[in-house]
């Protein structure tokens, strides 16, 4: 970065003038933010064997649930390059799979774990620990038919900001709140996520998620069914026709009435998971959205079939 022309102000002092609001005290959001998953990254056996490096040690990393694989790639690459790998490609060529399923780099890591780890193992009737989560790293043969091929590793930031805007649009009918953030606020939002700094991220994000006592038009919610079903994104009003807060059950019933009846008469066939937790379906969806959304401001509900 070139030096600032105004030598009287340090960059830090300049930044702080636009950012006077600290992150609001929210123990729930903090616990969600601090959630992490221990991951064991192993180099794809075929790739390693092809270059005679089949004894390369795994890389262990405790990844924030709210982070993205793209943000770990430089650490992962460095480990394997230090070990044996000769890699001159772009980091955007590097991809990950779990048990043969390529993992979407534009989904948060915690969501991927809940879908491909917990949801899938519940479907097979297994309940043993999956940790550390065993991920295979590939440096070749990017599966462009299954994963979005990004132009560069920093595409993750563009996708993330787009999700933030999509969430803003659902809440407010426009992306005005995001667009009204200053350039340095937008940078701080991403930097906070990238550097796993809760105060930095929430210092800005609360401006997007607090609605000045105006009820959000719709809440950003996505529902994930097992076995690679299409993701469900319906319009989710936050209150019902009587202006009462809707519950998670009502939201799930709206999209999946057969497996989430409003009144449970027998043994439930399904439940929903957020950040690896099974919340009560009587939880208000406004509360869940405010406290348990991922940093992209979507509430990602992973359906577990019992």
């Amino acid at each position, binding site marked *: 970065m070139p030096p600032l022309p105004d030598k009287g102000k340090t960059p830090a002092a300049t930044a702080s003038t636009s950012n006077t609001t600290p992150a609001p005290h929210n123990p729930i959001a903090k616990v969600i933010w601090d959630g992490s998953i221990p991951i064991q990254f192993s180099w794809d056996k075929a790739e390693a064997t092809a270059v005679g490096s089949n004894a390369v040690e795994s890389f262990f990393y405790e990844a924030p649930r709210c982070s993205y694989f793209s943000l770990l790639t430089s650490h992962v690459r460095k480990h394997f390059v230090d070990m044996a790998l000769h890699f001159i490609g772009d980091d955007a060529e590097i991809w990950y799979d779990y048990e043969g399923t390529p993992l*979407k780099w*534009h989904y948060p890591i915690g969501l991927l774990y809940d879908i491909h780890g917990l949801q899938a193992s519940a479907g097979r009737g297994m309940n043993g620990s999956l940790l550390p989560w065993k991920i295979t790293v590939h440096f070749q043969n990017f599966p462009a038919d299954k994963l*979005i091929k990004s132009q560069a590793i920093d595409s993750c930031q*563009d*996708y993330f*900001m*787009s*999700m933030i*805007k*999509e969430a803003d*649009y*659902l809440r407010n*009918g*426009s*992306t005005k709140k*995001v*667009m009204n953030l200053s350039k340095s606020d937008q940078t701080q939002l991403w930097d906070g996520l990238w550097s796993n700094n809760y105060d930095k991220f929430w210092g800005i994000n609360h401006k997007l998620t607090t609605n000045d006592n105006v009820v959000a038009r*719709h809440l950003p919610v996505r529902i994930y*069914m*097992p*076995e690679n*079903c*299409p*993701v*469900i*994104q*319906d*319009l989710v009003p936050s209150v019902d026709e009587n202006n009462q807060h809707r519950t998670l059950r009502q939201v799930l019933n*709206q*999209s*999946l*009435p*057969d*497996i989430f*009846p409003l009144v449970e008469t027998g043994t439930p*066939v*399904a439940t929903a998971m957020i950040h690896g937790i099974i919340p009560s379906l009587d939880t208000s969806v406004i509360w869940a959205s405010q406290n348990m959304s991922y940093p992209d401001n979507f509430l990602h509900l992973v359906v577990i*079939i019992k």
Partner: protein
Amino acid sequence: MSNVGTPSTESPPAANLLQETPGATTIDSAAPASPATVMANLRRRGANAKVVVRFKGVGGVPVMKNNLFKITGNRKFSAVIQFLRKEINYKNSDPLVFYVNSAFSPAPDEIVGDLFQCFGTDGTLIVNYSVEPAWG
């Protein structure tokens, strides 16, 4: 449309296009479908509904004479991208950015029917395209 000055933010009347949208009242006497049936139906969700996409070029991009196209609701947004690239003869390597409602860029794996349901305006899904980032 007579009310030109007032942008409509209501759900478009053409929301009926997606008649299979879950949430429709189920008949009380019918037994609930099993999870397997629900998943099978979900894979077909939107397959019988057409979404009308209205393309709007921004900046120096080729503009189409006819800019309204129908696409099946269960297709991914990537299909919209590929279709438009073909129409205006832009290779995959030619830079092109897509937006919905001049507001945000959906990921290529988002479902067209869901985008229409959530962001449709006056019965169409408005997709803007530009050679360089146009909004934020």
